[in-house]
């Protein structure tokens, strides 16, 4: 359906000679559409595009927010990769988070949404709430601080000591060996968020007649149904979910600071965004912080491109 309309709109662009004038004609014919787009576009440019461009420019400067920025070329980037050991730790940690929590939470969100979708409406509503509640509830994840608290009142310590597995409380959130896995656990706990909700709504919107037709065409089991019928129908939602997952798994920061402190012991859980906050909000080195943001941006864009390639293969 959509390809027909796209073809129509490309006609004006592809005919060489009167290309410009045809384009203008088409734009003039849709004046009202640009009017619809205007409020969003103006706000978006003012509050998103301009600040991003400014941040990219600032990444080539030294800017301490008191004196005017000084142009220093690529110095911030050179400093990041050659002189800042902690940044390299942060890159490593962020990649570990992203490669574990990203795919796991993405697959869990989709699989759970898909399984819940098969249930009766009441059960479906109940389970949706159950899985979605942890991410809806703001600071609810702070309960994990009590669960893994380092004193004897911590739930895990309390039970392990009561049953005699350990003699003294373990500093779960301070020991570099445990910090990373625990943060990953908590992040996964609250990862059934936006993507999950959109998957549920998307699955609900698939026309049931499609499955009836599929059954006649010889779809034999639920896996074939998923691969040949459901997933191709979900393509846009899958990409949406992927982008949301990429942005959230590459930018874990606040949860880590609140759970294991800032900075965490030996920087065991230090991430790129935490590093950025350190320079942006504590040391007021905005040029350096902006350079960190630019690098993070490129990491996410590359990941997104790869994921897009993979998702295009779905259902083939």
């Amino acid at each position: 359906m959509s390809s027909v309309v796209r073809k129509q709109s490309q006609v004006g662009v592809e005919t060489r000679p009167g290309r410009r004038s045809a384009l203008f004609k088409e734009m003039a014919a849709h004046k009202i559409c640009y009017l619809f787009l205007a409020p969003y576009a103006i706000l978006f440019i003012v509050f998103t595009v301009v600040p991003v461009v400014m941040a990219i420019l600032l990444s080539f400067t030294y800017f301490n927010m008191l004196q005017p920025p000084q142009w220093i070329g690529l110095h911030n980037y050179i400093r990041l990769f050659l002189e800042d050991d902690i940044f390299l730790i942060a890159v490593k940690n962020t990649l570990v988070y992203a490669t574990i929590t990203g795919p796991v939470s993405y697959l869990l969100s989709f699989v759970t949404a898909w399984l819940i979708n098969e249930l009766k409406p009441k059960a479906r509503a109940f389970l949706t709430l159950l899985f979605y509640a942890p991410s809806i509830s703001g600071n609810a994840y702070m309960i994990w601080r009590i669960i893994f608290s380092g004193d004897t009142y911590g739930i895990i310590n309390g039970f392990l000591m009561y049953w005699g597995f350990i003699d003294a409380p373990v500093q779960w959130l301070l020991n570099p060996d445990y910090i990373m896995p625990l943060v990953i656990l908590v992040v996964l706990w609250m990862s059934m968020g936006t993507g999950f909700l959109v998957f549920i709504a998307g699955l609900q919107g698939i026309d049931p007649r499609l499955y009836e037709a599929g059954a006649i065409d010889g779809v034999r089991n639920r896996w074939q149904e998923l691969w040949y019928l459901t997933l191709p129908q979900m393509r846009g939602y899958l990409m949406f979910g992927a982008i949301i997952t990429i942005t959230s798994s590459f930018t874990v920061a606040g949860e880590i600071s609140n759970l294991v402190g800032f900075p965490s012991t030996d920087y065991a859980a230090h991430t790129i965004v935490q590093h950025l906050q350190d320079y942006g909000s504590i040391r007021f080195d905005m040029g350096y912080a902006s350079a960190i943001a630019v690098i993070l941006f490129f990491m996410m864009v590359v990941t997104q491109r790869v994921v897009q390639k993979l998702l295009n293969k779905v259902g083939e």
Partner: protein
Amino acid sequence: MASRLSIRKRRLARSTGGDLVIMMFLLIGGAFMVIPMIMIISNAFKPLNELFLFPPRLIVRNPTTKNFHDLMVMMAQSWVPFGRYLLNSLIIVFFGTLGNVFFGSLAAYVISIRKVPGTRFFMGIVILSLMFSSEVTRIPNYVTIAWLGWIDSLRAIIIPRWSSSMGLYLMKNFMDHMIDRSLVEAAEMDGANDFRIYWQIVMPNVKPAWLTMIILLFQELWRTQGGHYIYSEQLKTLPYALSQITQGGVARQGVQAAVTLVMMVIPIIVFLVNQSKIVDTMGTSGMAN
């Protein structure tokens, strides 16, 4: 709904083994999700001595509403009446959500349905912007907002929200999937203008999209503390006021548990109301097609 389910059941023989594995998966996953939530609810009703008990208990033994009572007392002693904080939060949530859904869907209509020249490029930029850390755009934004004279006013929080990248992307996606092209063409034949098509054809058909958007926006805006933009005490939000109350060490642990529960329950209620409507619309639109 019922007939649709029975069709599905007849359609394919689901293997019992597969059903069993799926049930196990949902049970274990559900338990992992729900146990900490039960603890939060339970903690809010624990007397102080039960919060510090060895061995710890997941479920409260002698439930009490003392924590909520203490919270009320502290709220009553507040210099700014607590209703004011609540009102500020509600203003932010209401206008922030309204503007974002309206302007976002209007733009999504143009991008998804009309596809006028330039919109593909624009959408590409919106998606890229999702991946740029908001941490470093804070300073330029502060300068802009100061220049507009919005510092220390709720506008500083509400109006920038109206152009959230995520909201537009979400609406565009749902419109791509859910709008039947022939419906739009039929309306055009009848001479309906763009606003009519947007308002009477597209929006009712993507009801699940904006209901989902309301859930997500409410959840996010409800948590807003005011950040760097709000100085006046009478313009601060409820989460800010509650976070001030709970900063009192061990003695305030009970109150803190109560606050966590209060902050959690309200978005969950909004979620439940909206989610039930989503399921309703899905059922009917499935039939109507």
